[in-house]
């Protein structure tokens, strides 16, 4: 018994509990329907599973295409060491988005319908195709990590030969997909609160995804350095922090310009729940980290950099929730708050993501090896980091 408890470390216990609750909710969801498991209604048909699992899940996976573009297209090889964790996150992210979609779709058994039943005027149709195609691209981009581990030379050479076209297709699909999640809400001009409804929604979604992609890379590198007692790539991540400052700046200017164009200033200063959430999102999630990261002392300090990146991630999540849930509640007057079963499915999916990442990071060559190992790896050709 004592031995058993010893095995069950704190985080493993947390994981088991989250899995247990999530599996119970899964059982209810698939045996009694959406109505029994969720607080969704005719007045509020999209809730946490769309707002967090899909919108945030896809956004947090944006580091994959951002870093692929930086390293392979712009040829900034400095960032090569963090490209693998970014691609891993993206791949896991998309797999989990598809997994989560099975919960939210009323008829998950018909998820394949979009392949054969086309409606090109639908943003959702575009989303479906982007998810299918980009998940395939990510699987290919991720495959070298697996092939290296297994020592499969020939497929490895093949995937490396098509790296550039693959990256270009990946960047295009991500651009379309990140922005099309914003386009989903273009159709509800009368429902979404004017603080968030804008014809520029697709552009905002795209730019903020690039920002959060960079922030996630910083965040993960920091977490995994602690988990695996690995040296953290500070100079590199600080550089990424600098990129983040520029992206947040572009985002801020576009948001201000948009408010001015739509003459929506009044909503920002009207004291109500929406404006408070807007301030939280823009102030704490965009402006504060932007200022913090602009200060060299903060950017060059591991904790400072990590906290700023975390703020960006939280701000991003809040933005997606505001667009999809809180910004819609005023109109719907349905008072939606996710049920505990919705929440437990979501936390289970997050836990699965973290577990998947940790397992991959432990057993596959995801992170750059420490100095003394790097030498031996360079000697064996199939373990080389260059293509």
């Amino acid at each position: 018994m004592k031995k058993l408890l010893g095995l069950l470390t704190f985080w493993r216990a947390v994981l088991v509990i989250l899995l247990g609750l999530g599996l119970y909710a899964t059982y209810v969801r698939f045996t009694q329907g959406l109505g029994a498991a969720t607080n969704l209604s005719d007045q509020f048909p999209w809730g946490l599973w769309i707002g967090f699992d899909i919108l945030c899940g896809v956004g947090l996976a944006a580091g994959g295409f951002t870093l692929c573009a930086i390293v392979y297209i712009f040829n900034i090889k400095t960032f090569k060491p963090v490209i693998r964790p970014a691609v891993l996150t993206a791949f896991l992210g998309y797999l989990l988005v598809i997994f989560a979609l099975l919960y939210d779709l009323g008829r998950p058994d018909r998820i394949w319908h979009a392949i054969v039943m086309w409606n090109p005027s639908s943003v959702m149709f575009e989303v479906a195709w982007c998810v299918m195609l980009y998940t395939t691209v990510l699987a290919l981009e991720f495959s070298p990590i697996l092939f290296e581990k297994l020592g499969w030379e020939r497929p490895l050479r093949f995937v490396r030969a098509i790296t550039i076209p693959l990256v270009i297709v990946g960047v295009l699909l991500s651009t379309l997909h990140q922005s099309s999640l914003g386009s989903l809400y273009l159709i509800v001009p009368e429902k979404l609160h004017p603080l968030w409804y804008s014809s520029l929604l697709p552009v905002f979604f795209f730019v903020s995804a690039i920002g959060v992609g960079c922030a996630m890379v910083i965040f993960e590198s920091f977490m995994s350095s602690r988990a695996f007692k690995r040296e953290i790539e500070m100079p590199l991540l600080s550089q990424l922090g600098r990129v983040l400052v520029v992206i947040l700046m572009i985002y801020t200017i576009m948001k201000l310009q948009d408010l001015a164009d739509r003459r929506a200033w009044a909503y920002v200063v009207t004291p109500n729940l929406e404006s408070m959430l807007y301030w939280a999102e823009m102030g704490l999630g965009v402006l504060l980290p932007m200022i913090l990261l602009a200060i060299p002392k903060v950017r060059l300090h591991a904790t400072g950099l990590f906290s700023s990146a975390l703020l960006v991630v939280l701000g991003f999540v809040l933005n997606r929730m505001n667009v999809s849930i809180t910004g819609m509640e005023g109109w719907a007057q349905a008072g939606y708050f996710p049920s505990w079963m919705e929440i437990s499915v979501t936390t289970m999916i997050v836990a699965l993501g973290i577990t998947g990442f940790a397992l991959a990071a432990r057993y596959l060559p995801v992170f750059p090896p420490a100095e003394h190992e790097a030498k031996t790896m360079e000697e064996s050709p199939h373990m080389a980091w260059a293509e």
Partner: protein
Amino acid sequence: MARKAMLIDITLCVGCGLCRDACKEQNGLPAGEETKLNANAYTVVQDHGNDVFVRRVCMHCEVPTCASVCPVGAFTKTADGPVLYEESKCIGCRYCMQACPYQVPTYTWDQVAPRVRKCIFCHTRLAEGLPTACAEACPTGATIFGDREELIAEAQRRLREEPEKYVNHIYGLNEAGGSSVFFLSAIPFEQLGFPNNLPDHPLPMLTWNALSKIPNIVAVGGTALYGLWWIINRRDEVGKLQAKLKEMEDRKE
């Protein structure tokens, strides 16, 4: 077949609920006196006090938002007016419910294999040359059925002849590009829960503006990315080659 429509004159409605009952019978829905649209009620009559009763029913838009957003094309607008739903295609994403400006489509939330439910404009009756069940059942003429153009003319005639009785607006004529169901009222429509902030153009235009840019993004973006890679990496290769040449020359000397 000429495009059919319904005209609902709120001033004539007495709230008897016969339209609702006829609808339930026609569509085989369980009896009940719902006041909110749901999977068992394709139309309801809402009491707004002072003998004002308002029917809620699918508007059967000219350019339906639900049909535009459905990823698998489960909704179709037929030539004679109805907007139909094909259950066998539906994947249950509920984007139609999210996007409908009138909040009409409802869902069978309690089923494991749920489906969308909404008024289907009695399309089988229409095919037989019959009016919709609700219009046929209406004892006061508050709901009438007919050719779309004729009903618009009728609504305009009522507004012209009794301007003091009505607010000067045919609801559904221009909202979101127009519908196949029109309302006349003595009370401003926004006070009766009708959305009053809808644009005059069809909502699908909003997403179509974004979607139509995709081919350009792919073509221009793909070329630009490839071009960028080509230029930047060429520079890199040339640099390496020059360094190598220099090295060779240095060795000669």
